[in-house]
């Protein structure tokens, strides 16, 4: 994988008057409840450190009140931090003045909101060109770009409609198209699919996965739904009360939950349904030589375990090869598979 795109260092957010003084108290171990009682300050984020790789999907997961929406708003500074740094491409955005910040927002980030945040007085086409309109891009250019994105999210023919006339899923496709029309390097998605019906939600996840294959944007995705996190995330960070409990790949979190909180989250997950071949595959170096010459079976890397487990049982291969576009990217031994499913 690539370089670090976003780096968050010692990030604190404490809500309340003169909250800077409270950082010290939190550093010395004062908890959320005590801080609220003694100083009247609300601890939003507690010493968050994370680095987000370019072109990866980084999911931040937590229940409501965990600070996940606060965290994502620090990346485009819709919220100013109380302390700490947020670096994008090596530039500390917490130091930008308002003009530079607006330039940064225009060029680097796009955001998709839980309740869509569409402009009810503008039609779909004008909603999608909104970002370019703010950038003062010529209208005809903006419209042709917008039309292209509307096509990609499957909304051809809805240009002249108004947001209220569309279903939730369609509105969020508008929201996605609006963010992408600006061609941002970073896509911030704040519970983008949480307000949608389960089936629509699945469709939207699939649209995002499809688009991402081609776009390779850096995506920060907030959710409270573990299945969604596992499905979309290259990496997953779990937040609780403003503190990051654990960060890792889907497999790290499922197999080695570090805290009781994470453990309780992952307990009921059906691993065969959420883990894909690419999540559990290993390098050639870990595969014993005798297996390399035995009977093999081939899989696409996006296949979930559930979809190939039957075939493994009937064919009983010595080794499973994982491919992406005709290229072998990793291997799964039957031992590994049973270990993953049992642990």
């Amino acid at each position, binding site marked *: 994988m690539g370089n670090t795109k976003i780096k968050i260092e010692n990030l604190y957010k404490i809500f309340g008057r003169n909250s800077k003084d409270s950082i010290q108290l939190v550093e010395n171990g004062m908890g959320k409840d005590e801080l609220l009682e003694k100083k009247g300050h609300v601890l939003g984020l507690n010493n968050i450190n994370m680095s987000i790789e370019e072109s990866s999907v980084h999911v931040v997961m937590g229940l409501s009140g965990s600070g996940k929406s606060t965290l994502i708003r620090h990346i485009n500074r819709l919220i100013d931090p109380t302390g700490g740094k947020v670096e994008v491409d090596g530039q500390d955005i917490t130091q930008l003045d308002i003009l530079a910040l607006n330039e940064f*927002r225009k060029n680097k980030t796009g955001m998709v909101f839980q309740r869509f*945040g569409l402009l009810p007085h503008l039609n779909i086409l004008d909603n999608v060109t909104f970002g370019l*309109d*703010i950038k003062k891009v010529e209208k005809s250019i903006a419209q042709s770009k917008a039309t292209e994105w509307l096509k990609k999210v499957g909304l051809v023919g809805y240009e002249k409609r108004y947001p209220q*006339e569309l279903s939730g899923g369609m509105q969020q496709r508008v929201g996605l198209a609006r963010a992408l029309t600006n061609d941002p390097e970073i896509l911030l998605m704040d519970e983008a699919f949480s307000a949608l019906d389960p089936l629509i939600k699945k469709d939207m996840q699939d649209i995002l996965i499809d688009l991402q294959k081609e776009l390779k944007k850096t995506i920060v995705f907030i959710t409270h739904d573990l299945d969604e996190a596992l499905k979309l995330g290259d990496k997953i960070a779990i937040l609780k009360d403003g503190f990051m409990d654990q960060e890792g790949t889907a497999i790290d979190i499922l197999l080695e939950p570090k805290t009781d909180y994470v453990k309780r989250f992952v307990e009921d997950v059906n691993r065969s349904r959420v883990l894909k071949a690419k999540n559990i595959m290993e390098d050639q170096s870990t595969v014993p030589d005798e297996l390399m010459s035995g009977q093999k079976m081939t899989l696409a890397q996006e296949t979930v375990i559930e979809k190939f487990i039957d075939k493994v049982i009937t064919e009983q291969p010595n080794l499973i090869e994982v491919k992406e576009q005709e290229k072998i990217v990793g291997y799964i031994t039957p031992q590994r598979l049973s270990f993953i499913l049992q642990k």
Partner: protein
Amino acid sequence: MIDLLTEFPALPRTFLRDFKRGIDNGFKEFSRSYGDAIETFFYPLLKFLVFIEQLLLATPWPIFIGVVAFLGYWATRSYKLVLGVIVALFVVGLFGMWEDTMETTGIIVVSTLVAILVGIPLGILMSKSNNAQSILTPILDFMQTLPPFVYLIPVVMLLGIGKVPGLIAVVIYAVPPVVRLTNLGIREVDKEIIEAAESFGATPRQKLYKVQIPLAMPTIFAGINQTIMMALAMVIIASMIGVKGLGLEVLRSITNQYLAIGLLNGTAIVVIAIIFDRISQAYGKRVQEHRKGGHH
């Protein structure tokens, strides 16, 4: 002892006389030295008011009725309303109140325009700054609790009797709703939509013109509607300080006990009140259409 309880112990008569005289003289002094300047300041307003009045009076009555009927149709899309407007204006004209009605309409139009011109920027200022809001809110509260008659006193003292003082009294009386509702409308805009605009790097000005004002429009229009209604009420009262039109006739009928004149002019006032109210409310609703997902 008994005297002290039955009669209120007022300040000595001579003191009160000097006190009142002092204030009066001070005020006279003030208006003598600044009166001209104030008049010059308001002169363009007078010109504008006279222009609108002349325009309304010079317009042939069928054209005026046609324009109002068209506005009514454009705002409401209701033939019933259009028919009502035409019949009502016709009756008003038949009973010889056309000119008075035009004068009253003129001053309402002008005072509403001035109130909007003053009120919307004030409302925007209030929505942008909590300080401005905490200063302006008690002033607006105070203005709305004052009896309308009281407005006339300082205006008459400063500017005397005439069209402009009347207009200013009307504007001051009518401006609070549009200020309040502009503020409310902008503050009510969904926080997520504001965040969306900010996330695209919108400047405060872009945010205001592209997002906040358009979304606050229905609420602002509710404010304008209330402002028009209040202007109408005040125009009648302002007839006491020289505003001509239907109000003056009503005043005449009250002081001389002319029942018929009172009834007729009162009815004419109700007629223009209803026309203004229907048209401005219906337009406000149309502005709101997309919000409610109309269009079907």
